[in-house]
């Protein structure tokens, strides 16, 4: 009896330790990466990094201004494609569709979410790059936008379904039509959650490299426009990291640091939005 009790306590303590260690490891990975990036790339981050174009091979210095602007343009155009489609589709899914349609759309969205990003890239290459006969910012944005659709769609649906039924009834009892109810009560009640999800989707695609390799391609200079190839931070990291030059390696680390910082800022922004304003009670 006593031995049995001791054994139980041993198992309990062992499992407690294991779960604690694993939790610590998951957090530690992030801080290790952050620290490593700071150590290797921190020295290369200076004013020039944000304002100057890459220097030709052999010259030390220069920056990645074109890649930073390029990434911003890609994300903006991707949002213009992915957010409206995902958002309105999510509204349809949560508010209008029957059970059968909803489950089909939901399943398809989950599958789309699981399509490897390199495949999305090939698809964008075939659909946009080949017909126009050159790489472009828009092609890259198209690929990233596609990736944003399922994330936005599913989270919009989820947050709309989380709005208590009694709020809907309250609006309808005042003579609001279905669309009025959705647009004036349901969506406002859920918008902070939806906005957060959109920001997280943005953060997720911000670091995608594969879909950009043969869509937005890359550019050592300022992009000449939306229909022209552009540099972007992830592709720049890739190109610089595989190069044989010591200075480029340092810059790749710096670019990684900037990209991670960007994603961190978006995440913090998302959390701030979620925690402010009038909270909706759970149903």
């Amino acid at each position: 009896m006593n031995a049995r009790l001791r054994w139980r306590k041993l198992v309990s303590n062992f499992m407690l330790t294991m779960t604690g260690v694993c939790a610590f490891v998951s957090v530690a990975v992030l801080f290790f990466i952050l620290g490593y990036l700071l150590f290797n790339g921190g020295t290369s981050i200076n004013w020039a990094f944000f304002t100057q174009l890459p220097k030709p091979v052999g010259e030390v210095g220069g920056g990645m201004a074109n890649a930073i602007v390029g990434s911003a343009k890609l994300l903006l155009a991707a949002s213009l494609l992915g957010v409206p489609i995902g958002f309105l589709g999510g509204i349809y899914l949560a508010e209008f569709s029957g059970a059968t349609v909803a489950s089909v759309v939901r399943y398809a969205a989950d599958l789309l979410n699981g399509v490897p990003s390199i495949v999305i890239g090939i698809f964008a290459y075939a659909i946009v790059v080949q017909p126009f006969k050159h790489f472009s910012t828009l092609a890259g944005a198209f690929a990233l936008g596609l990736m944003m659709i399922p994330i936005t769609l599913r989270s919009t649906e989820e947050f709309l379904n989380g709005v208590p039924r009694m709020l809907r009834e309250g609006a309808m009892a005042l003579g609001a039509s279905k669309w009025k109810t959705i647009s004036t009560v349901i969506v406002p009640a859920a918008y902070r959650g939806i906005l957060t999800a959109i920001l997280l989707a943005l953060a997720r695609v911000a670091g995608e490299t594969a879909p950009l390799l043969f869509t937005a391609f890359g550019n050592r200079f300022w992009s000449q426009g939306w229909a022209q190839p552009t540099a972007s931070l992830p592709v720049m990291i890739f190109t610089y990291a595989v190069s044989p030059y010591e200075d480029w390696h340092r810059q790749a680390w710096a670019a990684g640091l900037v990209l991670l910082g960007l994603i961190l800022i978006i995440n913090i922004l998302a959390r701030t939005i979620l925690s402010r304003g009038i909270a909706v009670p759970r149903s």
Partner: protein
Amino acid sequence: MQSSPNPGLSVNVAATATSGAREAIGSIPLRMKISKVNFYYGTKQILFDINMGIADKRVTALIGPSGCGKSTLLRTLNRMHETVTSSRLEGEILLDQQNILAQDVTLLRRRVGMVFQRPNPFPKSIFDNIAYGPRINGMKGPIAEIVEKSLRHAALWEEVKDHLQKSAYELSGGQQQRVCIARALAVEPEVLLLDEPCSALDPISTAKIEELLVELKSLTTIAIVTHNMQQAARVSDFTAFLLTGQMIEFNPTPQLFTTPSDPRTEAYITGRFG
């Protein structure tokens, strides 16, 4: 007691309210008339051949044990039952002699407002909650005045007038429920339906709302569902007693509670079941 009906009202209403253009219970005209209503969820029948009237500018209470169909009956009066897709309604419900089932549902709900069991203010400011109905219905006139008038009618103005821009969720449960009443009153409904409006409230808030209902009679016609018999006795002029989806008795409140005409009513109000 302010809520007691006219002394001459001792007729059995279910028998009186039959047909004709100017129907009345005693001397009080009917605002709504429910005839031969049968109601189903899927294949399950909830209401059986219900006949009753809602007297103009009076409070009509629906009482009965849980699951007797009283809330369902109330929800048919502004067609809120249609939010459940498997529901089916047979029979006729008239509002001012017109069949509500043939009307545009949003217009109907503007005329027949509803307050729910649990306070359900929108996640907006107090002001925007009250202004919601007038805004979506494109009502004329300055919104601020409508808001003030509605809050006064709901006996809430003095408590909230200095912080109309605060979230409605910062108010107490009783105040939230009065926000919901004010919100419903803001579109000037002809009939106000209340579905157990005090069941989530403390006794003091409940007393306030009961007091309010008696005052609101001058403004609108009220139908209230309650599981609380004392509440029905306190606030209503007419009471309908339902049991397993059937209308057992519908009479002026004093009569139903003092000399019930059906033994089942007597059994229920004396607390032998339910």
